[in-house]
Protein backbone atom coordinates (compact mmCIF):
# COMPACT_ATOMS: atom_id res chain seq x y z
CA UNK A 1 0.00 0.00 0.00
CA UNK A 2 2.74 2.45 0.90
CA UNK A 3 4.32 1.84 -2.50
CA UNK A 4 1.69 4.17 -3.93
CA UNK A 5 3.09 7.14 -2.02
CA UNK A 6 6.44 7.34 -3.83
CA UNK A 7 4.75 7.04 -7.21
CA UNK A 8 2.31 9.75 -6.28
CA UNK A 9 5.16 11.96 -5.25
CA UNK A 10 7.08 11.25 -8.44
CA UNK A 11 4.03 12.08 -10.52
CA UNK A 12 3.48 15.28 -8.60
CA UNK A 13 7.09 16.21 -8.90
CA UNK A 14 7.17 15.58 -12.65
CA UNK A 15 4.11 17.72 -12.95
CA UNK A 16 5.68 20.52 -10.96
CA UNK A 17 8.91 20.35 -12.93
CA UNK A 18 6.95 20.41 -16.17
CA UNK A 19 4.89 23.34 -15.00
CA UNK A 20 7.92 25.11 -13.65
CA UNK A 21 9.92 24.73 -16.81
CA UNK A 22 7.34 25.54 -19.38
CA UNK A 23 4.95 27.73 -17.49
CA UNK A 24 7.21 29.09 -14.80
CA UNK A 25 7.18 32.53 -16.25
CA UNK A 26 3.43 32.39 -16.45
CA UNK A 27 3.03 31.79 -12.74
CA UNK A 28 2.42 35.23 -11.47
CA UNK A 29 4.10 36.76 -8.49
CA UNK A 30 0.86 36.85 -6.57
CA UNK A 31 0.18 33.17 -7.19
CA UNK A 32 3.63 32.24 -5.97
CA UNK A 33 3.14 34.27 -2.82
CA UNK A 34 -0.25 32.70 -2.22
CA UNK A 35 1.16 29.20 -2.72
CA UNK A 36 3.85 29.98 -0.20
CA UNK A 37 1.21 31.23 2.17
CA UNK A 38 -0.74 27.99 1.83
CA UNK A 39 2.42 25.95 2.32
CA UNK A 40 3.27 27.98 5.39
CA UNK A 41 -0.20 27.39 6.85
CA UNK A 42 0.15 23.66 6.28
CA UNK A 43 3.50 23.68 8.02
CA UNK A 44 2.13 25.56 11.00
CA UNK A 45 -0.86 23.27 11.27
CA UNK A 46 1.10 20.11 10.63
CA UNK A 47 1.60 19.20 14.30
CA UNK A 48 -2.16 19.25 14.83
CA UNK A 49 -2.99 17.57 11.55
CA UNK A 50 -0.40 14.88 12.13
CA UNK A 51 -1.94 13.99 15.48
CA UNK A 52 -5.20 13.17 13.72
CA UNK A 53 -3.75 11.60 10.63
CA UNK A 54 -1.42 9.09 12.15
CA UNK A 55 -1.44 6.37 14.66
CA UNK A 56 2.09 6.14 15.69
CA UNK A 57 2.82 3.02 17.53
CA UNK A 58 2.48 3.83 21.17
CA UNK A 59 5.12 3.02 23.56
CA UNK A 60 3.84 0.59 26.02
CA UNK A 61 4.03 2.59 29.17
CA UNK A 62 3.22 -0.29 31.42
CA UNK A 63 6.07 -2.50 30.36
CA UNK A 64 9.71 -1.84 30.20
CA UNK A 65 11.70 -3.50 27.51
CA UNK A 66 12.11 -7.23 27.82
CA UNK A 67 15.25 -8.00 29.76
CA UNK A 68 18.00 -9.56 27.78
CA UNK A 69 17.86 -13.29 27.63
CA UNK A 70 14.58 -13.35 29.51
CA UNK A 71 13.61 -16.28 27.36
CA UNK A 72 16.54 -18.25 28.69
CA UNK A 73 15.50 -17.47 32.24
CA UNK A 74 12.15 -19.00 31.52
CA UNK A 75 13.86 -22.12 30.30
CA UNK A 76 16.00 -22.27 33.35
CA UNK A 77 12.98 -22.00 35.57
CA UNK A 78 10.59 -23.92 33.44
CA UNK A 79 10.21 -26.62 35.88
CA UNK A 80 7.81 -24.42 37.81
CA UNK A 81 5.80 -23.17 34.91
CA UNK A 82 2.38 -24.33 33.88
CA UNK A 83 0.48 -23.28 30.77
CA UNK A 84 -1.53 -20.91 32.89
CA UNK A 85 1.63 -19.43 34.32
CA UNK A 86 2.91 -18.70 30.86
CA UNK A 87 -0.38 -17.18 29.83
CA UNK A 88 -0.12 -14.80 32.74
CA UNK A 89 3.54 -14.04 32.09
CA UNK A 90 3.90 -10.38 31.16
CA UNK A 91 6.88 -10.88 28.89
CA UNK A 92 5.20 -13.50 26.77
CA UNK A 93 2.35 -13.09 24.38
CA UNK A 94 0.12 -15.71 22.81
CA UNK A 95 0.37 -15.25 19.08
CA UNK A 96 -1.56 -18.29 17.94
CA UNK A 97 -3.69 -21.12 19.19
CA UNK A 98 -4.20 -24.08 16.96
CA UNK A 99 -6.58 -26.95 17.56
CA UNK A 100 -6.28 -30.08 15.46
CA UNK A 101 -8.60 -33.02 15.59
CA UNK A 102 -7.06 -36.35 16.40
CA UNK A 103 -8.56 -39.73 17.10
CA UNK A 104 -6.74 -41.39 19.94
CA UNK A 105 -8.14 -44.81 18.97
CA UNK A 106 -6.32 -44.72 15.67
CA UNK A 107 -2.98 -44.95 17.37
CA UNK A 108 -1.21 -47.51 19.46
CA UNK A 109 2.09 -48.00 21.13
CA UNK A 110 3.31 -49.81 18.05
CA UNK A 111 1.96 -47.19 15.79
CA UNK A 112 2.09 -43.98 17.73
CA UNK A 113 1.21 -40.47 16.75
CA UNK A 114 4.30 -38.59 15.60
CA UNK A 115 5.18 -35.11 16.69
CA UNK A 116 7.74 -33.90 14.19
CA UNK A 117 10.09 -30.96 14.25
CA UNK A 118 12.23 -32.12 11.36
CA UNK A 119 12.88 -29.52 8.69
CA UNK A 120 12.57 -26.59 11.06
CA UNK A 121 16.30 -26.04 10.80
CA UNK A 122 16.42 -23.35 13.39
CA UNK A 123 19.86 -22.35 14.44
CA UNK A 124 20.56 -19.67 16.91
CA UNK A 125 22.61 -16.67 15.95
CA UNK A 126 25.75 -16.18 17.85
CA UNK A 127 24.75 -12.89 19.31
CA UNK A 128 21.06 -13.42 19.55
CA UNK A 129 18.90 -15.62 21.60
CA UNK A 130 16.64 -17.12 19.02
CA UNK A 131 15.30 -20.48 19.72
CA UNK A 132 12.21 -22.36 20.49
CA UNK A 133 10.91 -24.47 23.25
CA UNK A 134 8.44 -27.24 22.81
CA UNK A 135 6.54 -28.49 25.79
CA UNK A 136 4.14 -31.36 25.48
CA UNK A 137 1.54 -31.90 28.18
CA UNK A 138 -0.88 -34.73 28.42
CA UNK A 139 -4.25 -33.61 29.64
CA UNK A 140 -7.51 -35.31 30.33
CA UNK A 141 -9.26 -32.06 29.65
CA UNK A 142 -8.72 -32.09 25.92
CA UNK A 143 -9.85 -34.38 23.15
CA UNK A 144 -7.88 -32.76 20.37
CA UNK A 145 -4.40 -31.44 20.06
CA UNK A 146 -4.20 -27.81 21.13
CA UNK A 147 -1.01 -25.92 20.41
CA UNK A 148 -0.51 -22.59 22.08
CA UNK A 149 2.36 -20.59 20.70
CA UNK A 150 3.94 -17.97 22.92
CA UNK A 151 6.22 -15.34 21.61
CA UNK A 152 8.68 -13.48 23.72
CA UNK A 153 7.67 -9.83 23.55
CA UNK A 154 9.97 -7.82 21.36
CA UNK A 155 10.64 -4.09 21.64
CA UNK A 156 12.55 -1.87 19.30
CA UNK A 157 13.27 1.61 20.60
CA UNK A 158 10.39 1.26 23.01
CA UNK A 159 7.86 0.06 20.44
CA UNK A 160 6.44 -3.42 20.65
CA UNK A 161 6.87 -5.47 17.52
CA UNK A 162 5.68 -8.82 18.87
CA UNK A 163 2.67 -8.93 16.55
CA UNK A 164 5.04 -8.85 13.61
CA UNK A 165 6.23 -12.35 14.29
CA UNK A 166 4.70 -14.99 12.09
CA UNK A 167 3.43 -17.93 14.12
CA UNK A 168 4.40 -21.41 13.23
CA UNK A 169 2.02 -23.49 11.19
CA UNK A 170 1.10 -26.77 12.78
CA UNK A 171 -0.55 -29.30 10.50
CA UNK A 172 -1.61 -32.89 10.60
CA UNK A 173 -0.57 -35.18 7.87
CA UNK A 174 -0.27 -38.84 7.27
CA UNK A 175 3.11 -40.36 7.27
CA UNK A 176 4.49 -43.71 6.73
CA UNK A 177 1.88 -46.39 6.76
CA UNK A 178 -1.13 -44.30 7.51
CA UNK A 179 0.19 -43.01 10.78
CA UNK A 180 -0.61 -39.48 11.83
CA UNK A 181 1.95 -36.81 12.26
CA UNK A 182 1.91 -33.36 13.74
CA UNK A 183 4.26 -31.26 11.73
CA UNK A 184 5.54 -27.77 12.30
CA UNK A 185 6.47 -25.26 9.64
CA UNK A 186 8.35 -22.17 10.58
CA UNK A 187 7.17 -19.14 8.64
CA UNK A 188 9.47 -16.31 7.95
CA UNK A 189 8.79 -13.22 10.00
CA UNK A 190 9.36 -9.85 8.45
CA UNK A 191 9.08 -6.93 10.70
CA UNK A 192 9.32 -3.44 9.28
CA UNK A 193 9.46 -0.56 11.61
CA UNK A 194 9.31 2.94 10.25
CA UNK A 195 10.69 5.50 12.50
CA UNK A 196 10.78 9.23 12.15
CA UNK A 197 14.27 10.29 13.00
CA UNK A 198 15.14 13.91 13.62
CA UNK A 199 18.17 15.28 11.81
CA UNK A 200 21.39 15.23 13.81
CA UNK A 201 21.56 19.03 13.72
CA UNK A 202 18.95 19.11 16.46
CA UNK A 203 21.36 17.43 18.83
CA UNK A 204 24.52 19.14 17.74
CA UNK A 205 24.98 20.93 21.06
CA UNK A 206 23.62 18.09 23.16
CA UNK A 207 26.84 16.51 24.40
CA UNK A 208 24.94 13.72 26.07
CA UNK A 209 24.34 12.01 22.80
CA UNK A 210 27.38 13.25 21.00
CA UNK A 211 28.75 9.81 20.33
CA UNK A 212 25.66 8.58 18.57
CA UNK A 213 24.82 11.80 16.88
CA UNK A 214 26.19 11.24 13.48
CA UNK A 215 26.90 7.57 13.48
CA UNK A 216 24.93 5.18 11.46
CA UNK A 217 21.87 3.75 12.99
CA UNK A 218 22.39 0.46 14.65
CA UNK A 219 19.77 -2.12 14.97
CA UNK A 220 19.14 -2.70 18.63
CA UNK A 221 19.21 -6.20 19.80
CA UNK A 222 15.98 -8.05 19.63
CA UNK A 223 15.61 -11.20 21.56
CA UNK A 224 13.15 -13.60 20.15
CA UNK A 225 12.01 -16.79 21.59
CA UNK A 226 9.06 -19.04 20.95
CA UNK A 227 7.41 -21.52 23.26
CA UNK A 228 5.01 -24.00 21.78
CA UNK A 229 2.88 -25.63 24.43
CA UNK A 230 1.23 -28.69 22.98
CA UNK A 231 -1.73 -30.17 24.86
CA UNK A 232 -2.50 -33.70 23.78
CA UNK A 233 -5.16 -36.10 24.92
CA UNK A 234 -4.04 -38.08 27.87
CA UNK A 235 -4.08 -41.50 26.19
CA UNK A 236 -2.59 -40.57 22.87
CA UNK A 237 0.55 -42.62 22.24
CA UNK A 238 3.24 -40.42 20.81
CA UNK A 239 6.75 -40.43 19.66
CA UNK A 240 8.96 -37.59 18.57
CA UNK A 241 10.66 -37.05 15.30
CA UNK A 242 13.40 -34.49 15.15
CA UNK A 243 14.08 -32.91 18.48
CA UNK A 244 12.72 -34.07 21.78
CA UNK A 245 10.52 -31.68 23.72
CA UNK A 246 12.12 -29.66 26.48
CA UNK A 247 9.43 -30.91 28.83
CA UNK A 248 6.98 -33.74 28.65
CA UNK A 249 4.30 -33.46 31.31
CA UNK A 250 2.45 -36.63 32.15
CA UNK A 251 -0.63 -35.24 33.69
CA UNK A 252 -2.06 -38.25 35.45
CA UNK A 253 0.99 -38.77 37.61
CA UNK A 254 2.01 -35.12 37.63
CA UNK A 255 5.46 -36.25 36.76
CA UNK A 256 7.68 -35.50 33.81
Amino acid at each position, binding site marked *: *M*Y*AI*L*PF*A*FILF*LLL*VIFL*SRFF*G*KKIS*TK*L*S*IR*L*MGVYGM*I*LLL*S*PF*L*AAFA*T*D*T*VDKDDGITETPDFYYQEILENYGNYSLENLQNEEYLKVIKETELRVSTESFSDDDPFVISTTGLN*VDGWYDRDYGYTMIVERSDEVENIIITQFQQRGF*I*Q*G*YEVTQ*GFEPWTWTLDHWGQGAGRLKAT*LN*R*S*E*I*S*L*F*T*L*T*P*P*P*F*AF*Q*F*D*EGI*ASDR*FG*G*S*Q*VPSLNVGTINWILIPEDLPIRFQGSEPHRLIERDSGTE
Partner: protein
Amino acid sequence: MNSIIHKDSQMSVAFEQFKDKLYHNSFAFFQLIALQALGYLFSFSSSMTGIGDQHFMLSIRHISPIPLFIMSVIWIVVQAFGFSGEKRREYYMVSNNFTAYFSDIAVLEIYAVIIGITMVFSGPMLQLLAGLSSGYPNLGTTYDSMTALHYLSLFITTTFYALLFGAGAYFLGILRSRYQSFLVIGSIAFILLLITWSLLGIRFIGPGFNIGTAGVKQFYVQETSIMLWLIKIIGSLGALYGLSWLAIKNLEVNR
Protein backbone atom coordinates in the same frame (compact mmCIF):
# COMPACT_ATOMS: atom_id res chain seq x y z
CA MET B 1 7.97 73.09 -11.51
CA ASN B 2 11.40 71.60 -11.87
CA SER B 3 12.20 68.02 -11.12
CA ILE B 4 13.07 67.68 -7.44
CA ILE B 5 16.49 66.43 -6.48
CA HIS B 6 16.50 63.66 -3.88
CA LYS B 7 19.25 62.55 -1.57
CA ASP B 8 17.99 59.49 0.25
CA SER B 9 20.41 57.38 2.23
CA GLN B 10 21.96 54.23 0.91
CA MET B 11 20.28 52.11 3.56
CA SER B 12 16.82 53.35 2.70
CA VAL B 13 17.43 52.53 -0.94
CA ALA B 14 18.85 49.13 0.03
CA PHE B 15 15.78 48.38 2.10
CA GLU B 16 13.50 49.36 -0.76
CA GLN B 17 15.51 47.12 -3.05
CA PHE B 18 15.29 44.26 -0.59
CA LYS B 19 11.49 44.47 -0.56
CA ASP B 20 11.39 44.74 -4.32
CA LYS B 21 13.62 41.71 -4.83
CA LEU B 22 11.67 39.64 -2.35
CA TYR B 23 8.48 40.46 -4.21
CA HIS B 24 9.71 40.02 -7.75
CA ASN B 25 11.56 36.80 -6.96
CA SER B 26 8.45 35.16 -5.55
CA PHE B 27 8.73 32.42 -8.13
CA ALA B 28 11.57 31.16 -5.94
CA PHE B 29 8.93 30.13 -3.41
CA PHE B 30 7.25 27.98 -6.00
CA GLN B 31 10.61 26.38 -6.71
CA LEU B 32 11.15 25.83 -2.98
CA ILE B 33 7.84 24.02 -2.66
CA ALA B 34 8.70 21.82 -5.64
CA LEU B 35 12.17 20.99 -4.38
CA GLN B 36 10.94 20.34 -0.86
CA ALA B 37 8.32 17.99 -2.27
CA LEU B 38 11.18 16.08 -3.82
CA GLY B 39 12.99 16.28 -0.51
CA TYR B 40 10.02 14.79 1.32
CA LEU B 41 9.90 11.97 -1.22
CA PHE B 42 13.53 11.14 -0.65
CA SER B 43 13.05 11.43 3.10
CA PHE B 44 10.81 8.38 2.97
CA SER B 45 13.64 6.40 1.42
CA SER B 46 16.34 7.84 3.59
CA SER B 47 18.05 4.88 5.03
CA MET B 48 17.41 1.43 6.26
CA THR B 49 19.11 -0.78 8.73
CA GLY B 50 18.25 -4.33 9.31
CA ILE B 51 19.21 -7.84 10.21
CA GLY B 52 17.87 -11.15 9.17
CA ASP B 53 18.22 -14.63 7.97
CA GLN B 54 15.97 -17.17 6.34
CA HIS B 55 13.56 -17.09 9.27
CA PHE B 56 13.46 -13.57 10.42
CA MET B 57 13.93 -10.19 8.87
CA LEU B 58 13.93 -7.02 10.89
CA SER B 59 14.22 -3.75 9.03
CA ILE B 60 14.12 -0.31 10.47
CA ARG B 61 13.43 2.34 7.86
CA HIS B 62 14.45 5.74 9.00
CA ILE B 63 12.35 8.56 7.74
CA SER B 64 14.67 11.45 8.14
CA PRO B 65 14.39 15.03 6.85
CA ILE B 66 18.05 15.16 5.82
CA PRO B 67 17.15 14.88 2.11
CA LEU B 68 14.68 17.70 2.64
CA PHE B 69 17.49 19.85 3.99
CA ILE B 70 19.72 18.92 1.07
CA MET B 71 17.06 19.94 -1.45
CA SER B 72 16.55 23.19 0.43
CA VAL B 73 20.25 23.89 0.28
CA ILE B 74 20.21 23.24 -3.45
CA TRP B 75 17.42 25.77 -3.68
CA ILE B 76 19.24 28.52 -1.83
CA VAL B 77 22.40 27.85 -3.86
CA VAL B 78 20.43 28.24 -7.09
CA GLN B 79 18.88 31.48 -5.83
CA ALA B 80 22.27 32.82 -4.75
CA PHE B 81 23.74 32.09 -8.18
CA GLY B 82 20.74 33.82 -9.71
CA PHE B 83 21.20 36.97 -7.65
CA SER B 84 24.89 37.19 -8.34
CA GLY B 85 24.53 36.41 -12.03
CA GLU B 86 21.84 38.83 -13.04
CA LYS B 87 23.19 42.08 -11.71
CA ARG B 88 22.26 44.48 -14.47
CA ARG B 89 18.55 44.60 -13.98
CA GLU B 90 18.43 46.41 -10.67
CA TYR B 91 20.83 49.17 -11.66
CA TYR B 92 18.34 50.65 -14.11
CA MET B 93 16.28 51.46 -11.09
CA VAL B 94 18.03 53.21 -8.27
CA SER B 95 21.00 51.15 -7.19
CA ASN B 96 24.68 50.98 -6.66
CA ASN B 97 26.87 48.01 -5.86
CA PHE B 98 26.43 48.41 -2.14
CA THR B 99 22.63 48.47 -2.19
CA ALA B 100 22.53 45.62 -4.68
CA TYR B 101 24.89 43.55 -2.53
CA PHE B 102 23.15 44.40 0.71
CA SER B 103 19.70 43.57 -0.61
CA ASP B 104 20.95 40.30 -2.14
CA ILE B 105 22.38 39.22 1.21
CA ALA B 106 19.23 40.28 3.04
CA VAL B 107 17.03 38.24 0.73
CA LEU B 108 19.30 35.21 1.07
CA GLU B 109 19.06 35.51 4.84
CA ILE B 110 15.29 35.52 4.64
CA TYR B 111 15.49 32.42 2.47
CA ALA B 112 17.76 30.74 5.02
CA VAL B 113 15.30 31.53 7.81
CA ILE B 114 12.51 30.03 5.71
CA ILE B 115 14.57 26.87 5.36
CA GLY B 116 15.12 26.79 9.10
CA ILE B 117 11.39 27.10 9.74
CA THR B 118 10.53 24.36 7.27
CA MET B 119 13.08 22.10 8.95
CA VAL B 120 11.55 22.71 12.37
CA PHE B 121 8.19 21.57 11.05
CA SER B 122 9.63 18.75 8.98
CA GLY B 123 8.94 16.12 11.66
CA PRO B 124 5.19 16.75 11.90
CA MET B 125 5.01 17.14 8.12
CA LEU B 126 6.64 13.77 7.59
CA GLN B 127 4.30 12.25 10.13
CA LEU B 128 1.34 13.84 8.39
CA LEU B 129 2.43 12.61 4.98
CA ALA B 130 3.06 9.11 6.35
CA GLY B 131 -0.35 9.11 7.92
CA LEU B 132 -2.07 10.23 4.73
CA SER B 133 -0.50 7.40 2.78
CA SER B 134 -1.82 4.73 5.17
CA GLY B 135 1.23 2.74 4.35
CA TYR B 136 3.17 3.01 7.55
CA PRO B 137 1.45 0.82 10.08
CA ASN B 138 4.42 0.61 12.39
CA LEU B 139 5.30 4.24 12.53
CA GLY B 140 7.46 5.13 15.42
CA THR B 141 9.07 8.41 16.16
CA THR B 142 12.10 9.48 18.06
CA TYR B 143 10.99 13.10 17.84
CA ASP B 144 9.57 12.57 21.32
CA SER B 145 13.08 12.92 22.65
CA MET B 146 13.31 16.45 21.32
CA THR B 147 12.82 19.31 23.69
CA ALA B 148 12.20 22.95 22.86
CA LEU B 149 15.95 23.56 22.99
CA HIS B 150 16.51 20.84 20.44
CA TYR B 151 14.01 22.49 18.12
CA LEU B 152 15.79 25.78 18.65
CA SER B 153 19.11 24.10 17.85
CA LEU B 154 17.56 22.61 14.75
CA PHE B 155 16.33 26.00 13.62
CA ILE B 156 19.60 27.79 14.30
CA THR B 157 21.86 25.15 12.78
CA THR B 158 19.85 24.59 9.62
CA THR B 159 19.39 28.32 9.09
CA PHE B 160 23.07 29.06 9.44
CA TYR B 161 24.18 26.09 7.38
CA ALA B 162 21.82 27.10 4.60
CA LEU B 163 23.10 30.65 4.85
CA LEU B 164 26.66 29.40 4.61
CA PHE B 165 25.93 27.54 1.42
CA GLY B 166 24.06 30.53 0.05
CA ALA B 167 26.90 32.89 0.88
CA GLY B 168 29.42 30.55 -0.74
CA ALA B 169 27.35 30.28 -3.90
CA TYR B 170 26.85 34.05 -3.98
CA PHE B 171 30.58 34.64 -3.69
CA LEU B 172 31.30 32.21 -6.52
CA GLY B 173 28.59 33.80 -8.62
CA ILE B 174 30.00 37.28 -8.08
CA LEU B 175 33.43 36.03 -9.10
CA ARG B 176 31.91 34.58 -12.23
CA SER B 177 30.14 37.87 -13.02
CA ARG B 178 33.19 39.96 -12.36
CA TYR B 179 35.92 37.86 -13.84
CA GLN B 180 34.22 35.97 -16.63
CA SER B 181 37.28 35.88 -18.81
CA PHE B 182 39.38 34.46 -15.98
CA LEU B 183 36.88 31.82 -14.98
CA VAL B 184 38.69 28.84 -16.43
CA ILE B 185 42.13 29.99 -15.34
CA GLY B 186 40.81 30.90 -11.93
CA SER B 187 39.19 27.50 -11.47
CA ILE B 188 42.36 25.71 -12.42
CA ALA B 189 44.39 27.94 -10.12
CA PHE B 190 42.01 27.25 -7.26
CA ILE B 191 42.24 23.47 -7.73
CA LEU B 192 46.03 23.68 -7.87
CA LEU B 193 45.98 25.76 -4.72
CA LEU B 194 43.87 23.15 -2.92
CA ILE B 195 46.16 20.34 -4.01
CA THR B 196 49.26 22.28 -2.93
CA TRP B 197 47.69 23.10 0.40
CA SER B 198 46.74 19.50 1.07
CA LEU B 199 50.21 18.26 0.11
CA LEU B 200 51.84 20.81 2.39
CA GLY B 201 49.42 20.01 5.15
CA ILE B 202 50.11 16.31 4.97
CA ARG B 203 53.83 16.97 4.77
CA PHE B 204 54.03 19.16 7.85
CA ILE B 205 51.03 18.15 9.91
CA GLY B 206 50.78 14.51 9.05
CA PRO B 207 48.32 12.04 7.63
CA GLY B 208 45.59 13.34 9.91
CA PHE B 209 45.41 16.54 7.94
CA ASN B 210 42.16 16.58 6.11
CA ILE B 211 40.82 19.41 4.07
CA GLY B 212 38.40 17.39 2.09
CA THR B 213 34.68 17.94 2.29
CA ALA B 214 34.60 15.54 5.24
CA GLY B 215 37.09 17.70 7.07
CA VAL B 216 35.14 20.87 6.34
CA LYS B 217 31.95 19.17 7.46
CA GLN B 218 33.59 18.01 10.69
CA PHE B 219 34.84 21.51 11.39
CA TYR B 220 31.29 22.73 11.77
CA VAL B 221 29.19 19.69 12.44
CA GLN B 222 31.31 18.11 15.16
CA GLU B 223 31.45 21.27 17.22
CA THR B 224 29.39 20.78 20.33
CA SER B 225 30.05 24.12 22.00
CA ILE B 226 27.50 26.60 20.80
CA MET B 227 29.74 29.61 21.36
CA LEU B 228 32.61 28.12 19.38
CA TRP B 229 30.23 27.01 16.70
CA LEU B 230 28.73 30.47 16.39
CA ILE B 231 32.20 31.95 16.14
CA LYS B 232 33.09 29.52 13.36
CA ILE B 233 29.89 30.08 11.45
CA ILE B 234 29.77 33.85 11.81
CA GLY B 235 33.46 34.06 11.04
CA SER B 236 32.98 32.03 7.88
CA LEU B 237 29.98 34.07 6.85
CA GLY B 238 31.89 37.27 7.53
CA ALA B 239 34.75 36.08 5.37
CA LEU B 240 32.45 35.09 2.52
CA TYR B 241 30.46 38.31 2.73
CA GLY B 242 33.64 40.35 2.90
CA LEU B 243 35.14 38.63 -0.10
CA SER B 244 31.90 39.04 -2.03
CA TRP B 245 31.89 42.74 -1.27
CA LEU B 246 35.46 43.12 -2.43
CA ALA B 247 34.57 41.38 -5.66
CA ILE B 248 31.44 43.42 -6.32
CA LYS B 249 32.72 46.76 -5.06
CA ASN B 250 33.86 48.13 -8.39
CA LEU B 251 31.72 46.00 -10.63
CA GLU B 252 30.68 47.85 -13.75
CA VAL B 253 27.29 47.47 -15.31
CA ASN B 254 27.77 46.69 -18.92
CA ARG B 255 26.42 44.20 -21.42
